[in-house]
Protein backbone atom coordinates (compact mmCIF):
# COMPACT_ATOMS: atom_id res chain seq x y z
CA UNK A 1 0.00 0.00 0.00
CA UNK A 2 1.48 3.31 -1.07
CA UNK A 3 1.26 6.38 1.16
CA UNK A 4 -0.88 8.20 -1.42
CA UNK A 5 -3.29 5.25 -1.53
CA UNK A 6 -3.55 5.33 2.24
CA UNK A 7 -4.38 9.06 2.30
CA UNK A 8 -6.97 8.53 -0.41
CA UNK A 9 -8.63 5.83 1.63
CA UNK A 10 -8.68 7.95 4.77
CA UNK A 11 -10.10 10.89 2.79
CA UNK A 12 -12.86 8.74 1.29
CA UNK A 13 -13.66 7.28 4.72
CA UNK A 14 -13.95 10.75 6.32
CA UNK A 15 -16.11 11.99 3.43
CA UNK A 16 -18.49 9.03 3.72
CA UNK A 17 -18.83 9.42 7.50
CA UNK A 18 -19.41 13.17 7.14
CA UNK A 19 -22.04 12.54 4.47
CA UNK A 20 -23.80 9.97 6.67
CA UNK A 21 -23.97 12.58 9.45
CA UNK A 22 -24.80 15.73 7.48
CA UNK A 23 -26.91 14.66 4.49
CA UNK A 24 -29.80 13.05 6.46
CA UNK A 25 -30.32 16.24 8.56
CA UNK A 26 -33.21 17.38 6.36
CA UNK A 27 -34.54 13.94 5.46
CA UNK A 28 -38.17 13.23 6.25
CA UNK A 29 -39.32 10.67 8.80
CA UNK A 30 -39.47 7.86 6.25
CA UNK A 31 -36.03 8.55 4.81
CA UNK A 32 -34.52 8.48 8.27
CA UNK A 33 -36.35 5.24 9.05
CA UNK A 34 -34.86 3.60 5.96
CA UNK A 35 -31.36 4.85 6.76
CA UNK A 36 -31.65 3.67 10.37
CA UNK A 37 -32.80 0.32 9.06
CA UNK A 38 -29.72 0.24 6.84
CA UNK A 39 -27.45 0.82 9.85
CA UNK A 40 -29.22 -1.89 11.88
CA UNK A 41 -29.17 -4.46 9.08
CA UNK A 42 -25.52 -3.69 8.40
CA UNK A 43 -24.68 -4.70 11.96
CA UNK A 44 -26.49 -8.02 11.52
CA UNK A 45 -24.84 -8.56 8.13
CA UNK A 46 -21.41 -7.81 9.63
CA UNK A 47 -22.01 -10.60 12.11
CA UNK A 48 -22.95 -12.99 9.31
CA UNK A 49 -19.95 -11.81 7.30
CA UNK A 50 -17.74 -12.94 10.16
CA UNK A 51 -19.34 -16.39 10.32
CA UNK A 52 -19.72 -16.90 6.58
CA UNK A 53 -17.32 -14.51 4.88
CA UNK A 54 -14.28 -14.87 7.12
CA UNK A 55 -14.71 -18.23 8.82
CA UNK A 56 -16.53 -19.87 5.89
CA UNK A 57 -19.43 -21.34 7.89
CA UNK A 58 -22.80 -21.10 6.15
CA UNK A 59 -25.62 -19.90 8.37
CA UNK A 60 -29.27 -19.39 7.53
CA UNK A 61 -30.13 -18.37 11.06
CA UNK A 62 -28.90 -14.79 11.35
CA UNK A 63 -32.47 -13.46 11.08
CA UNK A 64 -33.46 -15.59 14.06
CA UNK A 65 -30.74 -13.93 16.16
CA UNK A 66 -32.00 -10.50 15.12
CA UNK A 67 -35.39 -11.73 16.33
CA UNK A 68 -34.01 -12.93 19.66
CA UNK A 69 -32.33 -9.56 20.19
CA UNK A 70 -35.47 -7.68 19.18
CA UNK A 71 -37.69 -9.69 21.52
CA UNK A 72 -35.23 -9.28 24.38
CA UNK A 73 -35.29 -5.52 23.84
CA UNK A 74 -39.08 -5.36 23.37
CA UNK A 75 -39.92 -7.49 26.41
CA UNK A 76 -37.43 -5.84 28.75
CA UNK A 77 -37.89 -2.19 27.76
CA UNK A 78 -41.70 -2.41 27.84
CA UNK A 79 -41.27 -3.66 31.43
CA UNK A 80 -39.36 -0.48 32.19
CA UNK A 81 -35.84 -1.85 32.05
CA UNK A 82 -33.15 0.14 30.23
CA UNK A 83 -32.14 -0.80 26.69
CA UNK A 84 -28.53 -1.32 27.76
CA UNK A 85 -29.66 -4.16 30.03
CA UNK A 86 -31.57 -5.68 27.13
CA UNK A 87 -28.46 -5.32 24.99
CA UNK A 88 -26.44 -7.25 27.56
CA UNK A 89 -29.05 -10.01 27.74
CA UNK A 90 -29.31 -10.19 23.93
CA UNK A 91 -25.53 -10.44 23.50
CA UNK A 92 -25.13 -13.15 26.13
CA UNK A 93 -28.16 -15.09 24.91
CA UNK A 94 -27.23 -14.94 21.21
CA UNK A 95 -23.58 -15.70 21.95
CA UNK A 96 -24.58 -18.80 23.92
CA UNK A 97 -27.16 -20.03 21.39
CA UNK A 98 -24.76 -19.24 18.51
CA UNK A 99 -22.07 -21.25 20.24
CA UNK A 100 -24.41 -24.24 20.55
CA UNK A 101 -25.54 -23.81 16.93
CA UNK A 102 -21.87 -23.99 15.98
CA UNK A 103 -21.58 -27.62 17.11
CA UNK A 104 -23.23 -29.05 13.99
CA UNK A 105 -20.64 -27.12 11.96
CA UNK A 106 -17.96 -29.30 13.52
CA UNK A 107 -19.54 -32.27 11.77
CA UNK A 108 -21.28 -30.98 8.64
CA UNK A 109 -20.44 -28.27 6.13
CA UNK A 110 -21.95 -26.28 3.28
CA UNK A 111 -25.51 -27.27 2.26
CA UNK A 112 -25.88 -29.63 5.18
CA UNK A 113 -24.91 -26.94 7.62
CA UNK A 114 -27.29 -24.55 5.85
CA UNK A 115 -30.10 -26.99 6.52
CA UNK A 116 -29.28 -27.36 10.19
CA UNK A 117 -29.25 -23.59 10.66
CA UNK A 118 -32.42 -23.29 8.59
CA UNK A 119 -34.14 -25.67 10.99
CA UNK A 120 -33.04 -23.50 13.89
CA UNK A 121 -34.37 -20.42 12.13
CA UNK A 122 -37.78 -22.04 11.76
CA UNK A 123 -37.72 -23.18 15.37
CA UNK A 124 -37.00 -19.66 16.60
CA UNK A 125 -39.86 -18.30 14.47
CA UNK A 126 -42.26 -20.85 16.00
CA UNK A 127 -41.19 -19.82 19.49
CA UNK A 128 -41.80 -16.13 18.68
CA UNK A 129 -45.24 -16.97 17.29
CA UNK A 130 -46.49 -19.63 19.69
CA UNK A 131 -45.14 -18.70 23.11
CA UNK A 132 -47.80 -16.09 23.77
CA UNK A 133 -46.98 -15.72 27.46
CA UNK A 134 -43.58 -14.34 26.55
CA UNK A 135 -43.85 -12.80 23.09
CA UNK A 136 -47.59 -12.00 22.86
CA UNK A 137 -47.62 -14.23 19.76
CA UNK A 138 -49.08 -12.88 16.54
CA UNK A 139 -50.43 -9.76 18.30
CA UNK A 140 -46.89 -8.60 18.77
CA UNK A 141 -45.45 -6.14 21.26
CA UNK A 142 -46.22 -2.47 20.76
CA UNK A 143 -45.19 0.83 22.34
CA UNK A 144 -41.54 -0.11 22.55
CA UNK A 145 -39.82 2.95 23.99
CA UNK A 146 -36.70 4.53 22.47
CA UNK A 147 -33.83 4.97 24.87
CA UNK A 148 -32.11 8.00 26.34
CA UNK A 149 -28.50 7.88 25.29
CA UNK A 150 -26.04 9.84 27.43
CA UNK A 151 -28.92 12.01 28.58
CA UNK A 152 -30.28 12.68 25.06
CA UNK A 153 -33.74 11.43 24.18
CA UNK A 154 -33.77 9.51 20.90
CA UNK A 155 -37.52 9.37 20.48
CA UNK A 156 -37.39 11.62 17.39
CA UNK A 157 -36.21 10.05 14.11
CA UNK A 158 -32.99 12.06 13.63
CA UNK A 159 -31.47 11.41 17.08
CA UNK A 160 -32.45 7.76 16.80
CA UNK A 161 -30.74 7.56 13.41
CA UNK A 162 -27.59 8.99 14.99
CA UNK A 163 -27.90 6.41 17.75
CA UNK A 164 -28.05 3.62 15.14
CA UNK A 165 -25.18 5.15 13.16
CA UNK A 166 -23.08 5.47 16.31
CA UNK A 167 -23.77 1.84 17.20
CA UNK A 168 -22.76 0.83 13.69
CA UNK A 169 -19.54 2.82 14.18
CA UNK A 170 -18.74 1.05 17.44
CA UNK A 171 -19.50 -2.38 15.95
CA UNK A 172 -17.39 -1.60 12.87
CA UNK A 173 -14.39 -0.61 14.98
CA UNK A 174 -14.72 -3.74 17.11
CA UNK A 175 -15.01 -5.87 13.98
CA UNK A 176 -11.99 -4.17 12.40
CA UNK A 177 -10.03 -4.95 15.54
CA UNK A 178 -11.20 -8.56 15.57
CA UNK A 179 -10.38 -9.39 11.97
CA UNK A 180 -6.95 -7.77 12.20
CA UNK A 181 -6.14 -9.73 15.36
CA UNK A 182 -4.67 -13.24 15.24
CA UNK A 183 -8.24 -14.46 15.64
CA UNK A 184 -9.19 -12.94 12.30
CA UNK A 185 -6.26 -14.73 10.68
CA UNK A 186 -7.34 -18.00 12.28
CA UNK A 187 -10.90 -17.49 10.99
CA UNK A 188 -9.59 -17.06 7.45
CA UNK A 189 -7.44 -20.17 7.90
CA UNK A 190 -10.58 -22.05 8.88
CA UNK A 191 -12.25 -20.98 5.65
CA UNK A 192 -9.30 -21.54 3.33
CA UNK A 193 -7.84 -24.79 4.58
CA UNK A 194 -9.06 -26.35 7.83
CA UNK A 195 -6.78 -29.40 7.53
CA UNK A 196 -3.66 -27.28 7.23
CA UNK A 197 -4.91 -24.98 10.00
CA UNK A 198 -5.21 -27.97 12.33
CA UNK A 199 -1.65 -29.06 11.56
CA UNK A 200 -0.42 -25.58 12.55
CA UNK A 201 -1.83 -25.89 16.04
CA UNK A 202 -4.98 -23.89 15.33
CA UNK A 203 -7.84 -25.21 17.44
CA UNK A 204 -10.32 -25.20 14.56
CA UNK A 205 -13.08 -26.46 16.81
CA UNK A 206 -12.87 -23.53 19.20
CA UNK A 207 -12.51 -20.95 16.42
CA UNK A 208 -15.52 -22.39 14.54
CA UNK A 209 -17.69 -22.08 17.64
CA UNK A 210 -16.34 -18.57 18.28
CA UNK A 211 -17.15 -17.51 14.72
CA UNK A 212 -20.72 -18.66 15.19
CA UNK A 213 -21.07 -17.16 18.66
CA UNK A 214 -19.66 -13.73 17.82
CA UNK A 215 -21.52 -13.52 14.50
CA UNK A 216 -24.78 -14.46 16.23
CA UNK A 217 -24.18 -11.99 19.07
CA UNK A 218 -23.96 -9.21 16.47
CA UNK A 219 -27.32 -10.39 15.12
CA UNK A 220 -28.61 -9.89 18.66
CA UNK A 221 -27.13 -6.38 18.81
CA UNK A 222 -28.92 -5.51 15.57
CA UNK A 223 -32.15 -6.88 17.06
CA UNK A 224 -31.95 -4.68 20.16
CA UNK A 225 -31.78 -1.67 17.83
CA UNK A 226 -34.49 -2.98 15.54
CA UNK A 227 -37.15 -3.15 18.27
CA UNK A 228 -36.94 0.54 19.30
CA UNK A 229 -36.59 1.52 15.63
CA UNK A 230 -39.94 0.05 14.59
CA UNK A 231 -41.42 0.43 18.12
CA UNK A 232 -43.65 -2.54 17.35
CA UNK A 233 -42.57 -6.11 16.66
CA UNK A 234 -44.36 -9.29 15.72
CA UNK A 235 -42.89 -12.63 14.55
CA UNK A 236 -43.28 -11.98 10.80
CA UNK A 237 -40.14 -9.87 10.14
CA UNK A 238 -37.95 -12.56 11.74
CA UNK A 239 -38.96 -15.48 9.57
CA UNK A 240 -36.60 -17.26 7.21
CA UNK A 241 -36.74 -14.52 4.60
CA UNK A 242 -34.81 -12.15 6.89
CA UNK A 243 -32.02 -14.73 7.17
CA UNK A 244 -32.02 -15.05 3.38
CA UNK A 245 -31.98 -11.25 3.00
CA UNK A 246 -29.00 -10.99 5.32
CA UNK A 247 -27.24 -13.77 3.44
CA UNK A 248 -27.87 -11.86 0.22
CA UNK A 249 -26.48 -8.64 1.73
CA UNK A 250 -23.26 -10.42 2.63
CA UNK A 251 -22.87 -12.09 -0.75
CA UNK A 252 -23.89 -9.10 -2.88
CA UNK A 253 -21.61 -6.74 -0.96
CA UNK A 254 -18.70 -9.13 -1.07
CA UNK A 255 -18.40 -12.03 1.34
CA UNK A 256 -15.19 -11.87 3.35
CA UNK A 257 -14.59 -8.17 2.62
CA UNK A 258 -14.74 -5.78 5.56
CA UNK A 259 -16.92 -3.20 3.78
CA UNK A 260 -19.06 -5.84 2.04
CA UNK A 261 -21.98 -5.76 4.50
CA UNK A 262 -22.22 -1.94 4.37
CA UNK A 263 -22.64 -2.04 0.60
CA UNK A 264 -24.77 -5.17 0.59
CA UNK A 265 -27.17 -3.76 3.17
CA UNK A 266 -27.31 -0.52 1.20
CA UNK A 267 -28.41 -2.43 -1.88
CA UNK A 268 -30.86 -4.63 -0.02
CA UNK A 269 -32.46 -1.79 1.98
CA UNK A 270 -32.08 1.27 -0.23
CA UNK A 271 -32.22 -0.01 -3.82
CA UNK A 272 -35.84 -1.19 -3.52
CA UNK A 273 -36.73 2.34 -2.31
CA UNK A 274 -34.89 4.02 -5.17
CA UNK A 275 -36.61 1.72 -7.63
CA UNK A 276 -40.07 2.61 -6.30
CA UNK A 277 -40.68 5.03 -9.18
CA UNK A 278 -40.99 1.99 -11.44
CA UNK A 279 -44.03 1.04 -9.31
CA UNK A 280 -45.05 -2.58 -9.83
CA UNK A 281 -41.79 -3.50 -11.51
CA UNK A 282 -39.41 -2.57 -8.76
CA UNK A 283 -39.04 -6.01 -7.18
CA UNK A 284 -38.48 -7.58 -10.60
CA UNK A 285 -35.84 -5.02 -11.55
CA UNK A 286 -34.21 -5.50 -8.18
CA UNK A 287 -34.10 -9.29 -8.61
CA UNK A 288 -32.64 -8.98 -12.12
CA UNK A 289 -30.02 -6.49 -10.94
CA UNK A 290 -28.89 -8.84 -8.18
CA UNK A 291 -28.76 -11.83 -10.53
CA UNK A 292 -26.74 -9.95 -13.14
CA UNK A 293 -24.31 -8.75 -10.50
CA UNK A 294 -23.72 -12.27 -9.19
CA UNK A 295 -23.24 -13.66 -12.69
CA UNK A 296 -20.72 -10.95 -13.47
CA UNK A 297 -18.98 -11.15 -10.10
CA UNK A 298 -19.73 -14.10 -7.83
CA UNK A 299 -17.60 -12.45 -5.16
CA UNK A 300 -19.93 -9.43 -4.97
CA UNK A 301 -19.40 -5.73 -5.55
CA UNK A 302 -16.14 -5.56 -3.64
CA UNK A 303 -14.99 -8.62 -5.58
CA UNK A 304 -15.00 -6.46 -8.73
CA UNK A 305 -12.89 -3.80 -7.03
CA UNK A 306 -10.55 -6.43 -5.60
CA UNK A 307 -10.05 -8.00 -9.02
CA UNK A 308 -9.25 -4.62 -10.54
CA UNK A 309 -6.76 -3.74 -7.78
CA UNK A 310 -5.06 -7.14 -7.93
CA UNK A 311 -4.67 -6.86 -11.69
CA UNK A 312 -3.15 -3.43 -11.36
CA UNK A 313 -0.78 -4.57 -8.63
CA UNK A 314 0.33 -7.57 -10.69
CA UNK A 315 1.01 -5.29 -13.65
CA UNK A 316 3.05 -2.91 -11.50
CA UNK A 317 4.96 -5.81 -9.93
CA UNK A 318 5.80 -7.45 -13.25
CA UNK A 319 6.86 -4.07 -14.68
CA UNK A 320 9.15 -3.63 -11.67
CA UNK A 321 10.58 -7.11 -12.15
CA UNK A 322 11.22 -6.39 -15.83
CA UNK A 323 13.09 -3.21 -14.91
CA UNK A 324 15.20 -5.00 -12.31
CA UNK A 325 15.96 -7.78 -14.76
CA UNK A 326 17.06 -5.42 -17.54
CA UNK A 327 19.27 -3.58 -15.04
CA UNK A 328 20.87 -6.84 -14.00
CA UNK A 329 21.47 -7.77 -17.61
CA UNK A 330 22.98 -4.44 -18.55
CA UNK A 331 25.09 -4.29 -15.40
CA UNK A 332 28.81 -4.59 -16.18
Amino acid sequence: MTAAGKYWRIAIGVAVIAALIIVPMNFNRYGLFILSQWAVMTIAAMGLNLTLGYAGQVSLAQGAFVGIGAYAAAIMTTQGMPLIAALGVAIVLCFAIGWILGYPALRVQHHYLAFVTLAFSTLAFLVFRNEDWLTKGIYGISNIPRPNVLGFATSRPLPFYYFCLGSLGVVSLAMWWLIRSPWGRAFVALRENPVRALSLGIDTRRYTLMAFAIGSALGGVAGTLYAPLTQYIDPVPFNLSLSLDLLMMVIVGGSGFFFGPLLGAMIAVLLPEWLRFTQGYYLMLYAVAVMLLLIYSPSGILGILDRYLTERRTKVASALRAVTKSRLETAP
Partner: protein
Amino acid sequence: MTAVLEVSNIKKSFGGIKAVDGVSFDVQEGEILGLIGPNGCGKSTLFNCILGQLTPTDGEVKIDGKIVTGLRPSELNRLGVSRTFQLLQVFPKLSVRENLILAGQEHQGNMVSRLFGPSDAGLSAAADQMIGFFKLDHLATEAAGGLSYGQQKLLDAAMAFMGGPRLVLLDEPAGGVNLTMLGDLKERLAAINREKRATFVVIEHNMEFVMSLCTRVMVMAEGRLLAMGTPSEVRANPAVIEAYLGH
Protein backbone atom coordinates in the same frame (compact mmCIF):
# COMPACT_ATOMS: atom_id res chain seq x y z
CA MET B 1 20.47 -40.18 22.61
CA THR B 2 16.79 -40.24 23.40
CA ALA B 3 13.96 -41.25 21.11
CA VAL B 4 11.84 -38.26 20.09
CA LEU B 5 9.33 -40.44 18.29
CA GLU B 6 8.48 -44.05 19.08
CA VAL B 7 5.99 -45.84 16.90
CA SER B 8 4.90 -49.30 17.93
CA ASN B 9 2.84 -51.71 15.88
CA ILE B 10 0.72 -49.09 14.08
CA LYS B 11 -2.07 -50.61 12.01
CA LYS B 12 -4.62 -48.83 9.86
CA SER B 13 -7.24 -50.51 7.71
CA PHE B 14 -9.79 -48.94 5.41
CA GLY B 15 -12.50 -51.57 5.11
CA GLY B 16 -10.69 -54.71 4.06
CA ILE B 17 -7.54 -52.91 2.95
CA LYS B 18 -4.67 -52.90 5.40
CA ALA B 19 -2.94 -49.65 4.44
CA VAL B 20 -0.48 -49.88 7.32
CA ASP B 21 0.03 -53.31 8.79
CA GLY B 22 2.00 -53.25 12.00
CA VAL B 23 4.86 -50.79 11.63
CA SER B 24 7.26 -50.08 14.49
CA PHE B 25 10.29 -47.79 14.54
CA ASP B 26 11.78 -44.98 16.54
CA VAL B 27 13.55 -41.77 15.69
CA GLN B 28 16.40 -40.39 17.78
CA GLU B 29 16.84 -36.74 18.61
CA GLY B 30 18.57 -34.82 15.84
CA GLU B 31 18.16 -37.61 13.33
CA ILE B 32 16.91 -37.26 9.75
CA LEU B 33 15.02 -40.42 8.90
CA GLY B 34 14.06 -41.03 5.29
CA LEU B 35 10.90 -42.98 4.52
CA ILE B 36 10.75 -44.48 1.05
CA GLY B 37 8.66 -47.06 -0.72
CA PRO B 38 6.54 -47.53 -3.83
CA ASN B 39 3.34 -45.51 -4.30
CA GLY B 40 0.47 -46.79 -2.17
CA CYS B 41 2.71 -48.60 0.30
CA GLY B 42 1.21 -46.68 3.24
CA LYS B 43 3.78 -43.95 3.85
CA SER B 44 1.32 -41.06 3.94
CA THR B 45 -1.22 -43.10 5.91
CA LEU B 46 1.49 -43.85 8.47
CA PHE B 47 2.24 -40.10 8.67
CA ASN B 48 -1.43 -39.29 9.14
CA CYS B 49 -1.69 -41.88 11.93
CA ILE B 50 1.34 -40.44 13.72
CA LEU B 51 0.01 -36.90 13.37
CA GLY B 52 -3.51 -37.60 14.58
CA GLN B 53 -5.09 -36.85 11.22
CA LEU B 54 -6.21 -40.48 11.16
CA THR B 55 -6.91 -42.65 14.17
CA PRO B 56 -4.87 -45.84 13.90
CA THR B 57 -6.82 -49.11 14.09
CA ASP B 58 -4.19 -50.40 16.50
CA GLY B 59 -0.82 -49.44 17.92
CA GLU B 60 0.76 -46.62 19.85
CA VAL B 61 2.66 -43.39 19.16
CA LYS B 62 4.92 -41.79 21.74
CA ILE B 63 6.53 -38.36 21.59
CA ASP B 64 9.36 -37.88 24.10
CA GLY B 65 8.16 -41.01 25.85
CA LYS B 66 4.60 -39.73 26.25
CA ILE B 67 1.71 -41.56 24.59
CA VAL B 68 0.02 -39.23 22.11
CA THR B 69 -2.17 -41.63 20.14
CA GLY B 70 -5.62 -40.08 19.71
CA LEU B 71 -4.54 -36.49 20.24
CA ARG B 72 -5.84 -33.99 17.70
CA PRO B 73 -3.37 -32.59 15.13
CA SER B 74 -3.60 -29.13 16.70
CA GLU B 75 -2.70 -30.51 20.14
CA LEU B 76 0.21 -32.49 18.71
CA ASN B 77 1.44 -29.43 16.87
CA ARG B 78 1.51 -27.45 20.08
CA LEU B 79 3.59 -30.27 21.59
CA GLY B 80 6.19 -29.51 18.92
CA VAL B 81 5.24 -31.91 16.14
CA SER B 82 4.91 -30.22 12.79
CA ARG B 83 4.42 -31.32 9.20
CA THR B 84 4.47 -30.38 5.55
CA PHE B 85 2.10 -31.72 2.97
CA GLN B 86 2.51 -33.66 -0.24
CA LEU B 87 0.06 -31.40 -2.05
CA LEU B 88 0.25 -27.65 -1.70
CA GLN B 89 -1.29 -26.56 1.56
CA VAL B 90 -0.70 -22.86 2.00
CA PHE B 91 -3.39 -20.23 2.57
CA PRO B 92 -3.64 -18.73 -0.91
CA LYS B 93 -5.32 -15.42 -0.02
CA LEU B 94 -2.98 -14.56 2.84
CA SER B 95 0.40 -13.01 2.09
CA VAL B 96 3.60 -15.00 2.58
CA ARG B 97 4.27 -13.13 5.83
CA GLU B 98 0.69 -13.68 7.05
CA ASN B 99 1.00 -17.39 6.30
CA LEU B 100 4.08 -17.58 8.49
CA ILE B 101 2.60 -15.51 11.32
CA LEU B 102 -0.45 -17.76 11.25
CA ALA B 103 1.83 -20.80 11.45
CA GLY B 104 3.38 -19.50 14.66
CA GLN B 105 0.62 -17.61 16.43
CA GLU B 106 -1.01 -20.53 18.25
CA HIS B 107 2.28 -21.52 19.85
CA GLN B 108 2.29 -18.67 22.33
CA GLY B 109 -0.11 -16.96 24.69
CA ASN B 110 -3.76 -17.95 24.94
CA MET B 111 -7.05 -17.08 23.26
CA VAL B 112 -7.36 -13.84 25.23
CA SER B 113 -3.86 -12.58 24.50
CA ARG B 114 -4.36 -13.45 20.86
CA LEU B 115 -7.51 -11.32 20.77
CA PHE B 116 -6.21 -8.26 22.59
CA GLY B 117 -2.51 -8.53 21.80
CA PRO B 118 -0.77 -7.10 18.74
CA SER B 119 -2.11 -7.96 15.31
CA ASP B 120 1.06 -9.82 14.31
CA ALA B 121 1.15 -11.74 17.63
CA GLY B 122 4.69 -10.35 17.99
CA LEU B 123 5.85 -12.64 15.21
CA SER B 124 6.73 -10.18 12.42
CA ALA B 125 10.43 -10.40 13.17
CA ALA B 126 10.41 -14.19 13.39
CA ALA B 127 8.42 -14.41 10.17
CA ASP B 128 10.84 -12.09 8.35
CA GLN B 129 13.76 -14.13 9.61
CA MET B 130 12.13 -17.27 8.24
CA ILE B 131 11.39 -15.47 4.96
CA GLY B 132 15.06 -14.54 4.72
CA PHE B 133 16.17 -18.03 5.61
CA PHE B 134 14.08 -19.55 2.83
CA LYS B 135 15.03 -16.74 0.41
CA LEU B 136 11.49 -15.54 -0.10
CA ASP B 137 12.31 -11.88 0.71
CA HIS B 138 11.01 -10.37 -2.54
CA LEU B 139 7.69 -12.21 -2.05
CA ALA B 140 6.94 -11.33 1.59
CA THR B 141 3.81 -9.27 0.85
CA GLU B 142 2.59 -11.27 -2.15
CA ALA B 143 -0.50 -13.45 -1.75
CA ALA B 144 0.70 -17.04 -1.31
CA GLY B 145 -1.67 -18.22 -4.06
CA GLY B 146 0.27 -16.17 -6.60
CA LEU B 147 3.61 -17.88 -5.97
CA SER B 148 5.10 -20.53 -8.24
CA TYR B 149 4.72 -24.17 -7.24
CA GLY B 150 8.28 -24.44 -5.98
CA GLN B 151 8.01 -21.22 -3.99
CA GLN B 152 4.79 -22.43 -2.37
CA LYS B 153 6.57 -25.65 -1.48
CA LEU B 154 9.31 -23.63 0.23
CA LEU B 155 6.68 -21.57 2.05
CA ASP B 156 4.95 -24.77 3.14
CA ALA B 157 8.23 -25.99 4.63
CA ALA B 158 8.93 -22.60 6.25
CA MET B 159 5.49 -22.69 7.87
CA ALA B 160 6.26 -26.05 9.44
CA PHE B 161 9.25 -24.49 11.21
CA MET B 162 7.56 -21.35 12.56
CA GLY B 163 6.49 -22.84 15.86
CA GLY B 164 10.04 -24.06 16.61
CA PRO B 165 9.10 -27.74 16.37
CA ARG B 166 11.13 -30.61 17.83
CA LEU B 167 9.93 -33.09 15.24
CA VAL B 168 8.94 -32.35 11.66
CA LEU B 169 7.35 -34.85 9.29
CA LEU B 170 7.89 -33.83 5.68
CA ASP B 171 5.72 -35.46 3.03
CA GLU B 172 7.52 -35.29 -0.34
CA PRO B 173 9.13 -31.89 0.15
CA ALA B 174 11.04 -32.21 -3.14
CA GLY B 175 8.08 -33.17 -5.34
CA GLY B 176 7.73 -30.74 -8.22
CA VAL B 177 10.56 -28.51 -7.04
CA ASN B 178 13.20 -27.57 -9.65
CA LEU B 179 16.85 -28.52 -9.21
CA THR B 180 18.20 -25.17 -8.05
CA MET B 181 15.45 -24.80 -5.49
CA LEU B 182 15.90 -28.41 -4.44
CA GLY B 183 19.52 -27.75 -3.55
CA ASP B 184 18.38 -24.73 -1.55
CA LEU B 185 15.73 -26.71 0.25
CA LYS B 186 18.14 -29.50 1.18
CA GLU B 187 20.67 -27.02 2.47
CA ARG B 188 17.99 -25.23 4.56
CA LEU B 189 16.73 -28.48 6.06
CA ALA B 190 20.23 -29.61 6.93
CA ALA B 191 20.96 -26.24 8.53
CA ILE B 192 17.81 -26.29 10.68
CA ASN B 193 18.64 -29.86 11.69
CA ARG B 194 22.17 -28.84 12.70
CA GLU B 195 21.41 -25.57 14.44
CA LYS B 196 18.08 -26.25 16.12
CA ARG B 197 18.57 -29.97 16.78
CA ALA B 198 15.24 -30.50 15.01
CA THR B 199 14.43 -34.11 14.15
CA PHE B 200 12.99 -34.96 10.74
CA VAL B 201 11.14 -37.79 9.11
CA VAL B 202 11.07 -37.31 5.34
CA ILE B 203 8.93 -39.14 2.80
CA GLU B 204 10.52 -38.70 -0.60
CA HIS B 205 10.77 -40.38 -4.00
CA ASN B 206 13.84 -38.46 -5.08
CA MET B 207 16.55 -40.98 -4.11
CA GLU B 208 19.41 -38.56 -4.52
CA PHE B 209 17.68 -36.17 -2.11
CA VAL B 210 16.95 -38.88 0.47
CA MET B 211 20.33 -40.58 0.30
CA SER B 212 22.30 -37.36 0.68
CA LEU B 213 20.12 -35.77 3.39
CA CYS B 214 19.13 -38.65 5.65
CA THR B 215 21.12 -40.36 8.34
CA ARG B 216 18.91 -43.44 8.25
CA VAL B 217 16.46 -44.72 5.69
CA MET B 218 13.40 -46.84 6.27
CA VAL B 219 11.70 -48.70 3.41
CA MET B 220 8.04 -49.63 3.38
CA ALA B 221 6.22 -52.00 1.03
CA GLU B 222 2.58 -53.07 1.16
CA GLY B 223 1.97 -51.53 4.55
CA ARG B 224 4.94 -53.18 6.25
CA LEU B 225 8.46 -52.24 7.17
CA LEU B 226 10.78 -53.80 4.61
CA ALA B 227 14.19 -52.54 5.58
CA MET B 228 15.88 -49.99 7.86
CA GLY B 229 19.49 -48.84 7.81
CA THR B 230 22.00 -46.29 6.61
CA PRO B 231 21.52 -45.07 3.05
CA SER B 232 24.26 -47.34 1.70
CA GLU B 233 22.89 -50.42 3.52
CA VAL B 234 19.43 -49.80 2.17
CA ARG B 235 20.68 -49.24 -1.35
CA ALA B 236 22.42 -52.60 -1.30
CA ASN B 237 19.48 -54.50 0.20
CA PRO B 238 18.10 -57.07 -2.31
CA ALA B 239 14.57 -56.87 -0.83
CA VAL B 240 14.52 -53.12 -1.51
CA ILE B 241 15.69 -53.56 -5.07
CA GLU B 242 12.99 -56.19 -5.51
CA ALA B 243 10.25 -53.93 -4.11
CA TYR B 244 11.19 -51.04 -6.35
CA LEU B 245 12.08 -52.87 -9.53
CA GLY B 246 10.17 -56.16 -9.30
CA HIS B 247 6.53 -55.07 -9.29
